[in-house]
């Protein structure tokens, strides 16, 4: 069951075209990695999929519905959440307020309370600091808050933009294993946009993005062999 189908997506900023026909898909319960070096167009892809950036061509189909060009505000209603680049902390608001906003579109108070409970249980450190302003948390704690907030609305698909950015290698591994666990236990599909090759470890399928186009893809066991292709793409050197 395909949750997200992107076909021939083109977009850019003014006269600068960044995406030249990106096609990919994410199925229910899958972890899909979109790998690429800087300037490849990874963040632009996510911004176009979420509607923050207007697509000049191509389509985005979410759960069977055409959502190309839909306002980002409607995404949560479709069960899609995004953890933006830099984690998107609302710095002046407290941890608990950030979490509450994660469930902004959830009407049922009991559901919200249950989601909050779940978040605090999964991330006890957030409970400890729930009255603290989000801007004062460390990078790793912010990553947890970002994930916790993303899960508050019980999404079916999570878009994660460069979770490893600004994190130490240890924290990066931690973040990835958290995402993998979320996928395993809650069945949330994940589109993981990353530069770091460790992301391949938790991916069921992977794509390599280079200069605005998908140049390679793999699934299952082949995913790990993409490492060599990545080396070629990033450094121009065969493994």
């Amino acid at each position, binding site marked *: 069951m395909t949750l997200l189908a992107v076909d021939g997506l083109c977009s850019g900023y003014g006269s600068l075209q960044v995406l030249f026909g990106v096609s990919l898909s994410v199925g229910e319960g899958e972890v899909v990695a979109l790998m690429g070096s800087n300037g490849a167009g990874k963040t632009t892809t996510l911004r176009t999929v*979420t509607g*923050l950036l207007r697509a000049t061509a191509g389509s985005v189909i979410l759960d069977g519905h055409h959502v190309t060009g839909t*306002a*980002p*505000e*409607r*995404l*949560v*209603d479709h069960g899609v*959440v*995004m953890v*933006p680049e830099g984690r*998107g*902390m*609302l*710095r*002046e*608001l407290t941890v608990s*307020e950030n979490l*509450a*906003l*994660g469930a*902004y*579109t959830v009407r049922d108070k009991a559901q919200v309370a249950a989601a909050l409970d779940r978040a605090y249980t999964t991330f006890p450190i957030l409970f400890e600091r729930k009255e603290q302003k989000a801007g004062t948390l460390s990078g790793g704690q912010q990553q947890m808050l970002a994930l916790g*907030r993303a899960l508050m*609305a019980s999404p079916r698909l999570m878009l994660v933009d460069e979770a490893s950015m600004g994190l130490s290698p240890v924290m990066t591994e931690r973040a990835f294993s958290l995402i993998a666990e979320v996928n395993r236990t809650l069945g949330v599909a994940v589109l993981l946009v990353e530069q770091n090759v460790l992301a391949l470890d938790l991916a069921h399928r992977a794509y390599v993005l280079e200069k605005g186009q998908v140049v390679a893809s793999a699934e299952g066991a082949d995913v790990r062999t993409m490492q060599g292709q990545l080396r070629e793409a990033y450094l121009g050197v065969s493994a």
Partner: protein
Amino acid sequence: MLGEVVVGLAIGSAYSMLAVAVVLVYSSTRVLSLAAGEIGAFALYAGLHWHEDGLLGWHPTVLEAGLIAVLLGGALGLLVERVVMRPLVGRPPLDGLVATLAVALFLALLELALYGIDPFAAPSPVGDGSFDVFGSTLTAPEITLLLLAAGVAGGLWLFLTRTRFGLATRATTSDPTVARLLGVKVNRVYVFAWGTAGLLAGAAAALLAPIQGSLTPFSLTTALLSALAGAVIGGLDSLGGAIVGSLLVGVVNGVVGSRVDPTTSAGVVFAGVLAVLLLRPQGLLGSTRATA
């Protein structure tokens, strides 16, 4: 002296309502609105005119005219948001500022065209009672302003910290893109900001005009400028700062204005604004984000 301070606080309360109007709009949209003064003035003109000439057989009392001014101010705010500011989303903030200047200019010139340049009598909507305080006289509008401003400050604080939509507003102020991704309909936040700003402008106009004696085109924009000075000194993205700053400016205008003269008082405020802009641009209570 203390009495003068209290009177200054009352005037400062009017400024603080205008300042809150400006800061509400600025913190959520990053646009500095200089239209608040004339929005309130135009609404009051309409209300008072209605009171004098009647419409469809109904002659509202002065109090009712004041309430009409408040509601009309809100409606005008909503109209400006929809017709002028919404199309400008995404354009640089200075374009927004020029747009609000255009709105202020348009409304003031419209007032001129419809009601002429002669001062328009502005009776007090809350009667003419007065109160002696520390040697100075506090009139009914002034007392109302003090109470109203306190109420507005308290109400807004409760709204922003205790309600769901208030939280959404604070999220939009912090980061509109992230707020959108969380499902917040930021357009509604903009509508709320402008509508509330309009209501506050109408209320400030209704109570300030009787204190000044009459209503003329641009007289409320002059008051708005003092409010703006207060907001800049307090911090353009801090509601608390806006209130504190405006009260301060009100007291300075009240004390220096009556003891020395209005020009010196304007000079002091000007120096204060300049000092803040150069030494601490985010204002006394603002965050560094304010200086975008």
